[in-house]
């Protein structure tokens, strides 16, 4: 098998040289994330020009901050709480289910320092989704946002979770703003449900951890928790549907994350001044892009991290953008498009902005172009997957932006493009992207068959089909896997179909994606009425049913009722026929819009 890169193994290295990217990755700075976090906090407490390490800003401008030293201290206490008070061991899974807030870094770093495995979870998950994930991972402890404590009773009974820690959105805020925000949440908005299960609040957990640590010999003792953690040990179980749609945990190691941070810093380094950056984190940290890039990557360079608990509506970002000297942003197409539609942003774009990263979903060239015009800064689209921690490729920040391209592979990454027969394709031809590199996961948790299906000889099959030009720039042309990207979130037709099929009134269902101006793609379900069921099949009923079992972004935006669905000779539903119908429908609409 002739590798197209046989003569020039990594043709994109020439581009690295042009734009000032070091092609070789340095050796790992630390053996594990505990050491990394502790070191970064200690160094930047001294050297960073940032006013704080993490600042959480709520829509009306109220805010709270944690310094580098404080984050280090509190995460030590949380690690001690996990190891000493709860008696957890290295490798035990601890789930975190919160929106962005000051508690997130404290808890996440604490879990990593303790050598436990972090399971990032979407706080909007329904109890059914929570149970599936927590059972699969064998989660022993859960840190949950207090707003959703009412989901606990139905979840705890069905999982191995023994300990619950609750934290609030205004955790670690100064006294009065904290009291006001809690007061408004409790009395006005009524979003704080009473908690009926045994739990500990984060402040109490940290106090217990602190006491335990002092008994064990003081803060220096905390370093024993991570001293012997090896790079190949698990740091995260990051759940994703992968290529088949069954939700499974990608096993991400300390080495994966540390390397991906290096890769990210190598690609963006020309626009990053250590100790002087201020990054806006509107993307949720439980999403792998914000976790690696914002939480870990920008910590590595001592930046101030502005955390936004709720980026919808996009107006919630206004005070944060006005009050802080934002130099970097990460986002998805939906966010950038949203900001470009806000008068306050377009009239006064942040003067300090240096560069932005777009990931999660493809960046529309119209949005990218307008963003560059309005902010006068580069926006670089990147590509990656949960299974690759996540960064695989990235457009260089210098030079002419290539519209529609996902860029060149990050340093240390190898790419093959492979056709259906397993043969490597040449430049300009489409093939499935196979990735090899230090950022590739170890496999799926307890899913040997699924793992074997995608990981072979260290090469990961991504399910995305792309072309590469002779300089190494790639362009996605198709998606092999049946996956829908709603605002950068993976949605798997299988999961939705399973839920809808439970309805008595539904005989058959097929779910496909449709283009969507706001979210990139939207979910559509084609349903067939069950003739044995009395009563008509109402689209509203289908949506209501979905809302009970699925997080909001997975709920179909449109329902189409059909007499029957296209099938193969053996009776398998042909999603691609429905996709073709959708494509035709949208093209007709486009024509109609152009010639009214």
């Amino acid at each position: 098998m002739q590798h197209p890169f046989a003569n020039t193994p990594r043709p994109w290295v020439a581009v690295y040289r042009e734009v000032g990217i070091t092609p070789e990755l340095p050796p790992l700075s630390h053996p594990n994330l505990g050491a990394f976090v502790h070191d970064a906090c200690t160094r930047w407490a001294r050297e960073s020009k940032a006013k704080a390490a993490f600042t959480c800003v709520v829509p009306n401008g109220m805010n709270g901050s944690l310094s580098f030293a404080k984050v280090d201290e509190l995460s030590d206490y949380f690690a001690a709480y996990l190891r000493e008070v709860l008696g957890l061991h290295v490798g035990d899974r601890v789930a975190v289910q919160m929106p962005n807030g000051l508690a997130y870094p404290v808890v996440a770093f604490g879990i990593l320092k303790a050598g436990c495995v972090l399971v990032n979870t979407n706080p909007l998950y329904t109890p059914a989704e929570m149970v599936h994930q927590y059972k699969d991972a064998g989660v022993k402890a859960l840190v949950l946002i207090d707003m959703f404590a009412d989901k606990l009773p139905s979840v705890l009974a069905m999982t191995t979770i023994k300990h619950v820690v609750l934290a609030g959105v205004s955790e670690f805020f100064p006294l009065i703003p904290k009291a006001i925000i809690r007061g408004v949440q409790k009395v006005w908005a009524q979003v704080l449900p009473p908690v009926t299960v045994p739990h500990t609040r984060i402040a109490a957990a940290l106090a217990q951890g602190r006491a335990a640590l002092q008994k064990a010999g003081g803060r220096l003792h905390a370093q024993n928790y991570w001293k012997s953690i090896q790079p190949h040990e698990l740091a995260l179980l990051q759940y994703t549907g992968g290529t088949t749609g069954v939700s499974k945990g990608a096993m991400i190691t300390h080495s994966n994350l540390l390397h991906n941070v290096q890769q990210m810093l190598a690609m963006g380094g020309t626009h990053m001044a250590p100790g002087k950056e201020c990054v806006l984190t509107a993307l949720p940290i439980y999403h792998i892009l914000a976790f690696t890039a914002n939480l870990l990557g920008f910590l590595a360079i001592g930046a101030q991290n502005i955390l936004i608990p709720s980026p919808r509506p996009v107006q919630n970002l206004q005070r944060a953008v006005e009050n802080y000297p934002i130099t970097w942003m990460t986002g998805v197409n939906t966010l950038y498009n949203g900001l470009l539609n806000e008068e306050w942003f377009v009239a006064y774009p942040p003067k300090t902005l240096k560069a932005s990263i777009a990931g999660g979903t493809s960046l529309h060239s119209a949005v990218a172009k307008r963003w560059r015009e309005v902010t006068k800064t580069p926006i670089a689209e990147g590509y990656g997957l949960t299974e690759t921690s996540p960064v695989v490729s990235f457009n260089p920040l210098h030079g002419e932006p290539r519209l529609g391209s996902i860029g060149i592979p990050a340093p240390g990454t190898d790419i093959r493009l492979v056709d259906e027969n397993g043969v490597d394709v040449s430049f300009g031809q489409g093939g499935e992207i196979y990735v090899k590199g230090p950022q590739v996961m170890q496999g799926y948790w307890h899913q040997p068959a699924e793992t074997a299906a995608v990981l072979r000889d260290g090469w990961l099959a991504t399910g995305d089909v792309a072309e590469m030009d002779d300089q190494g720039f790639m362009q996605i042309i198709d998606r092999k896997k049946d996956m829908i990207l709603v605002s950068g979130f993976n949605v798997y037709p299988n999961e939705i179909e399973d839920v809808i099929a439970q309805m008595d009134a539904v005989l058959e269902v097929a779910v496909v994606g449709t283009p969507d101006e706001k979210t990139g793609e939207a979910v559509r379900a084609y349903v067939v009425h069950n003739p044995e069921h009395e009563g008509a099949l109402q689209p509203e009923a289908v949506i209501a049913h979905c809302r009970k079992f699925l997080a909001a972004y997975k709920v179909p935006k449109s329902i189409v009722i059909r007499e029957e669905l296209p099938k193969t000779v053996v009776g398998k539903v042909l999603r691609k026929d429905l996709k073709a119908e959708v494509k035709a429908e949208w093209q007709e609409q486009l024509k109609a819009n152009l010639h009214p």
Partner: protein
Amino acid sequence: MLTEFETQLLGLMMMVIMLGMGASLTYRDFLIAFRRPKGVLIGLVCQYGLMPFVGFTLAILLNFPPALAVGLILMGCMPGGTTSNIFAYFSKGVLALSIMMTSISTLVALVAVPALLAFYTGMAGIGSEFAVPASNVAQVLVVLLVPTLIGMVTRKLNPNIGATMELIGSFMGIFVILFLIVTWVPRNHMLLAATPVSVYFAVIGLGLIGMALGFLLARLLRQDRNRSRTIALETGIQNGPLAVLIVTLTFTGAMQQEVLLIPVLYSLFIVLTSTFVTLFFRRLADREALARDQAKTGSVSQASR
């Protein structure tokens, strides 16, 4: 009439409200509002073009004696009340527009109120003993504008303190009216019983007619339904407590008692009127939002192809 202490307390509460109003704004909010001045201009026309005229017309039509006429015209000339922001929020209106209209009409009041007051009281043939000197209006407003500026500066320097001030200011807006009810009504229940229906008609009418005209003018000038509803509330809700302060500064004794009647009654009734109108507007807003969603997502139900 209000005792000296009550007047001072009222003044203090108004300063807190103004502090809160300032803290809800940033310099940039003004710049952004002025990029598209149409909404603000419509607000000013409603506030200082329509309302004083409505007040004047009602006073003439209902044949009010000078004391009542002055009170009604004064009410018509007032800038927007800060409670309009709360009602705009609850009616699911455009809060930013409401805040901007209230602030700008308050700033402009320094010049507009004395001029309009002099004009309309002159037109109504009200004698000089009932005249409200411009200096009194200016005095009260300047005292209130200083806290506004302090609020804005504080917001810039410390968002936490600024946001807290904003919240306290909003509560104070409602509290002030409750304060007026509690201090004034019990002492004057005889007066209230003897008050002719025409006075009640005038105070309620000023608010409702103002809202109706504000809505119509906004729609005429092509503002969408939601913005028009917000402009309606903004137009009809005047700054009653501010009028009370001006009256207590200008008049004493029995005259103060008489002139105070309309501003105080207006302040009481506007809360009731606004509540009903807001609930109604809220239902309209919900209905429109639902229609929009259904049109967009199209819970498409198609017969088989």
